[in-house]
């Protein structure tokens, strides 16, 4: 238990500079992009004269220097104020909390599915490397992994929503349906099948491959030879010895993939018209909405840091070597 607390404390401290760097870099990146929020807004309304642009820049605070704006942002950030979105005309925090649950639902289910099925199929493949079953699963996963998620999303949507009409084409729930309670949950689940499927299938392939190669390596190790010579049953060797050791890199992957999944959801959210985080980020960039984009990045960074912390904790539980040798600070 002590080990876990030490880990959390260490991570919390080390994540502060990470967040700072992320914020400054995002700010500079958006700053270096040509055009500002006023350009984007005037474009969306089909033009306006020079005085409109001038007064809008003043209202958005864009007439101040870059450093002044960065400083302003940091000083409000320490009070947990993420600022005001210029593109939406609403507080950033409201926007984020409106969209975050949808993305977490999408990402969470996709991660759980891809990890679950990926590792299970990986065990099946890795249980007997180079067998027919392994060849089929490995090739299949390679093909899946090579498919771009937007293409898979579109194809799934055409087949299951447009042609077979089993599932809705897009959205997070049936619009203005007045459904509540369990009926609504079921409705949301129905809407999530395709986007989660599109996202999960691709990442599943990744987990499958990592699991499979980890197991293939483990088979050659001495302790497996020992377990076999001890006369343990094959299934016991596969699950308790080979798979458990191969699981470690998979857990690492899980942490890394949570960040990639956040990025991947941008595409899937657009295709399936899910009002989520990814789509919000895309709108923030095209609207040159610095406060909103930074809010999104900060929250995403916190999210990824948390997931990785969780992964580390799981890692520590799985592998007694982790964190054992850390000094007592």
């Amino acid at each position, binding site marked *: 238990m002590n080990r876990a607390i030490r880990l959390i404390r260490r991570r919390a401290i080390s994540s502060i500079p990470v967040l700072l760097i992320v914020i400054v870099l995002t700010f500079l990146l958006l700053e270096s992009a040509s*055009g500002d929020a006023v*350009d984007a807004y005037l474009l*969306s309304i089909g*033009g306006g004269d020079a005085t409109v642009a001038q007064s809008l820049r003043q209202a958005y605070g864009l007439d101040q220097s870059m450093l002044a704006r960065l400083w302003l942002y940091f000083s409000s950030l320490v009070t947990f104020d993420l600022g005001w979105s210029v593109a939406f005309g609403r507080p950033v925090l409201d926007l984020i909390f409106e969209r975050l649950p949808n993305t977490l639902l999408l990402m969470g289910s996709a991660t759980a599915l891809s990890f679950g099925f990926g590792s299970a199929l990986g065990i099946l493949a890795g249980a007997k490397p180079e067998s027919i079953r392994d060849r089929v699963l490995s090739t299949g996963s390679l093909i899946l992994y090579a498919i771009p998620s937007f293409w898979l999303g579109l194809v799934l949507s055409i087949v299951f929503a447009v042609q077979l009409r089993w599932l*809705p084409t897009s*959205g997070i729930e049936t619009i203005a349906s007045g459904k509540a309670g369990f009926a609504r949950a079921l409705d949301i689940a129905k809407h999530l*099948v395709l986007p989660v499927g599109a996202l999960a299938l691709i990442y599943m392939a990744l987990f499958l491959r990592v699991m499979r190669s980890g197991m293939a390596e483990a088979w050659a190790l001495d302790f497996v030879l020992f377990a076999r010579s001890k006369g343990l049953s094959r299934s016991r060797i596969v699950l308790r010895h080979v798979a458990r050791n191969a699981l470690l890199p998979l857990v690492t992957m899980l942490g890394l993939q949570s960040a990639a999944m956040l990025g991947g959801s941008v595409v899937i959210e657009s295709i399936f018209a899910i009002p989520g985080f990814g789509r919000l980020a895309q709108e923030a960039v095209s609207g040159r909405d610095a406060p909103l984009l930074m809010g999104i990045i900060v929250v995403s960074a916190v999210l990824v840091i948390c997931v990785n912390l969780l992964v580390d904790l799981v890692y520590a539980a799985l592998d007694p070597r982790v964190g054992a040798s850390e000094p007592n600070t």
Partner: protein
Amino acid sequence: MTIATLSRRTLLQAGGTLLASTALPTFAIAQGAGNRLIVAADSEPKNLNPAIVASNGVFFSASKVVEPLAEASFDGKDGLAPRLATSWEGSADGKSVTFKLREGVKWHDGKPFTSADVAYSALNIWKPLQNLGRLVFANLEAVDTPDATTAVFKFSKPTPLQLIRNALPVVSSVVPKHLYEGTDIATNPANVKLVGTGPFKLTEYKPGEYYRLTRNADYWGKGEPKLDEIIFRVLPDRAGAGAALEAEEIQLAAFSAVPLTDLARISKVPGIKVISKGYEALTYQLVVEINHRRKELADVKVRQAIAHAIDKKFVVDTIFLGYAAASTGPVPKNAPEFYDASVPTYAFDTAKANALLDEAGYKKGANGTRFSLKLRPAPYFNETKQFGDYLRQALAAVGIDAQLINADSAAHQKAVYTDHDFDLAIGPPVFRGDPAISTTILVRSGIPAGVPFSNQGGYENKELDGIIAKAAETVDTAARTELYKQFQKIVATDLPLINVAEWGFITVARDTVQNVSNNPRWAVSNWSDTALKS
């Protein structure tokens, strides 16, 4: 894969049973859902008030809630159909326009609509705040309200009635004085929670998902609206609208939400119709913007050569798949009141283009090129980007090396209209019913940097400026129209910019939707007579 299929099936089965068991209370809430029109929307404007933001993105949903004084019409007098105003008349000196207003109209909150609302909207919003109204009502001094149904607009300088008339559908959305007076107009909550006089009330907005418009039972139109509800469903992905139409999740997609390349296929789907009517007053123009600061481009021969190098028929047939028309000049054919066909034209002729360039003194170098240009296509439409690719090839054929620079919207905007960092740019300006609204600004001189969709190419022609200034205060309709014919001739001769094609959008709808596209601004009109056949 197998497991995914299984869960899908079980879900569906379970879903069916559950839905059946909860069907009764659900339908009680979504009453009249059978008469609900669901429409694809691709944007969610932050300010929905059409009196402040006169743009198609806002009008698309807001025009059903907030009405203008008059709407465009195919067969009405002056091309208009009355809405909140029933008649309009200008004085001989052009310094006043009298509007008679409709009687018995109520705001959605029950208060009566009067001339005070019109006066307030005009003086406090259209003139000082609205993107287009600033120009049209620049000389508006006062609005007299002798009684509740009369509004007299007083101008400090003669203002042509023709311009006011043509601008009415776009610039004259009336908002309630009692909700705006004494508040900060720009941040008034009614800019999002609209209150109007229109056939539909805005009853719900779920960000990222939909707008719900509900029937206004007190609407002044007899027996209107015909629909109980309109839902604008946000579908950001272009492929999404087509799929949702086919799956019957939505019934209508306007503004070419279904891409041109999908039209041939989707028009064959039973129960779906493809309509190209209903955008005549919203004509977009494909234009090559020219930076006259470049020495080569300052030579009219070079500009003519570029015009000759473009195969407009190819552009219309291949890029627009036939859903466009070749342009002859700055006024589109859809504006018959002003359009003049007798202007110089530039037939596709590579040999002539080469000859003109030689004549201008830009001989081909050893590598076959005469000079290089920076070409920036606007990223707003697929077609503007594709035309960028085409233009590069067309220019290469006459020995001009164009380097394409693609940027996203905000970056393009800044590069072209503020920084002037372009030699050629491709833009899609809109013709808004009268050349004075957003067309003359494309060639007039003296516009400060930073004004989008304006002459930022440094072009200056005193004669043209004179005509534009004169037309702005010519009250006589015939004389004013004549000035704009001269305007077209000069632009087509001197080529401050090159008009290539003009296009409207495409509506795709289920056959059940009736009275679609029955006016020239249909997508952004009030849809009071739109109905669903069950």
